[in-house]
């Protein structure tokens, strides 16, 4: 069911050309300005490569965060939210492929950004260990997806939660070390970063592209992610219950 659901959601999302275009293009505005900043600062080529990787993965989070909450809002407007809740499978399980499809689109965006970096800014990416890079990418995507599920669950209960997704877009970029090393942030932020699974995924990706071992980071990422999955699942159940009590499933 998960894979079928994921594929159908992917198709549905790809159909809306405008939304698709936006998800692909929007993070590129930010990546472009960031590349320009580093160019202006005459960054070394290795720094540019690190930036390119960070900037391109930003789009995976963008895709998930902004659309996670809006998708629930869209379901609510179409009247299908109630149907989703009524389905015999737990809602959390239904949400996963939904979010995964968005993350997949985020991956398209990542590839586009990398191409953009290559052909417009001349940044050539060399991945030292492609296999572990790929594995790290998959784990990162999953860790992002889990966060997305939590956001989507929140918007089942709270109509205004769609703004939450957009609000979290930039903080996660900053705190999870997509662009700026965590060590550069104030020390009190670091525990927050460590608590977020994507931070470890990101760190693993950097390690893989540099040729260092990513496995320790990946293990932590999976561990933290699993905790989220459990929290997410419990949360979804309680939220759906609350939504039924407070009658927010059907309101537009």
């Amino acid at each position, binding site marked *: 069911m998960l894979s079928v659901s994921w594929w159908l959601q992917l198709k549905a999302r790809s159909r809306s050309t*405008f*939304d698709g*275009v*936006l998800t692909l*293009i*929007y993070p*590129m*505005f*930010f990546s*472009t*300005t*960031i590349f*320009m*900043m*580093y160019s*202006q*600062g*005459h*960054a070394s080529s290795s720094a540019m490569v690190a930036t390119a990787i960070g900037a391109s993965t930003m789009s995976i989070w963008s895709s998930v965060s902004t659309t996670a909450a809006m998708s629930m809002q869209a379901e609510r407007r179409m009247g299908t939210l109630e149907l989703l809740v009524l389905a015999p499978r737990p809602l959390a399980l239904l949400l996963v492929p939904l979010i995964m499809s968005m993350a997949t689109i985020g991956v398209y965006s990542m590839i586009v950004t990398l191409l953009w970096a290559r052909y417009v800014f001349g940044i050539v990416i060399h991945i030292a260990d492609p296999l572990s890079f790929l594995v790290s990418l998959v784990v990162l995507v999953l860790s992002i997806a889990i966060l997305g599920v939590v956001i989507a669950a929140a918007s089942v209960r*709270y109509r*205004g*939660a*769609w*703004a*939450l997704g*957009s*609000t979290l*877009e*930039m*903080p996660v*970029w*900053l705190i999870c070390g997509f*662009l*700026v*090393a965590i060590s*550069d*942030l104030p020390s009190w932020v670091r525990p927050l970063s460590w608590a977020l699974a994507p931070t470890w995924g990101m760190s693993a990706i950097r390690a893989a592209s540099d040729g260092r071992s990513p496995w320790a980071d990946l293990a932590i990422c999976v561990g933290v992610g699993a905790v989220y999955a459990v929290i997410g699942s419990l949360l979804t159940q309680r939220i759906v219950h609350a939504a039924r009590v407070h009658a927010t499933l059907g309101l537009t």
Partner: protein
Amino acid sequence: MNSLRIFFLGGLTSYRALFNWLSPWILIPAFLFTPLFQILLFVYIGRDAGVSDDSFFLIGNSIVNAAVPCLFAMGNTIGGERTAGTLPLLISSPAKRLPLFLGRALPAVANGFLVAVFALAAGALVLRAPIPAATWGGLALAIAVSSISCTGLGLLNAAIALRVRETAVFSNILFGLIVVFAGVNVPIGEMPAWMGVVAKCLPLTNGIQASHVLAAGGSIRDIGGSLAAELVVGGSYALLGIALLRWLEWESRRKATLDTA
């Protein structure tokens, strides 16, 4: 007299009726947190890249966040008529179109102004980069002019929203373009020439430049030219927007396009 009432009261009512973000759960994250984080993000990137100083990014990113209400609110308060199904009622009313649509711009301008000013003040506090009291007057002026000008672009965006369903997409794209081209994070001087040309055609470019001049110790007289340029840019977009609105209404009467698009 009636036109004035439509402009002020009607504009405010439409804003309340159609701007979907008017709940505190949305306003606070969208207009208080996000701008602040955007400032922080670029300040840190700037430090990492070794370019400019904190206040450069503080100013640019504060002002650019005025664009969010200016673009999105306008898209909502005119495009929203379509969702509400009230377009036929507006068109069949005798109300003059200019105050009807321009009136909705006023709350958007005020909104943009407040967002930018808050972001600037809060950002200055968080980054411990205080802005001298003397410059606040000039900055407020520059921000106000920037908001007005950006709302002009918002008006054009809103007119498009009457015809094309995905108004949020356009608003996002316009915002992205402004972030890249308007000298928000990269000084105009450091950009390739062609980007500088595009920058001149966008709102906020001149306003941001003026603010940098003020922060560096310039006076209001020094920024007069920039502010005038800003108003010209914004005004042109506003005129285009109004022209498009009129044309859309005309076209709809001939081809029944507005209700059903």
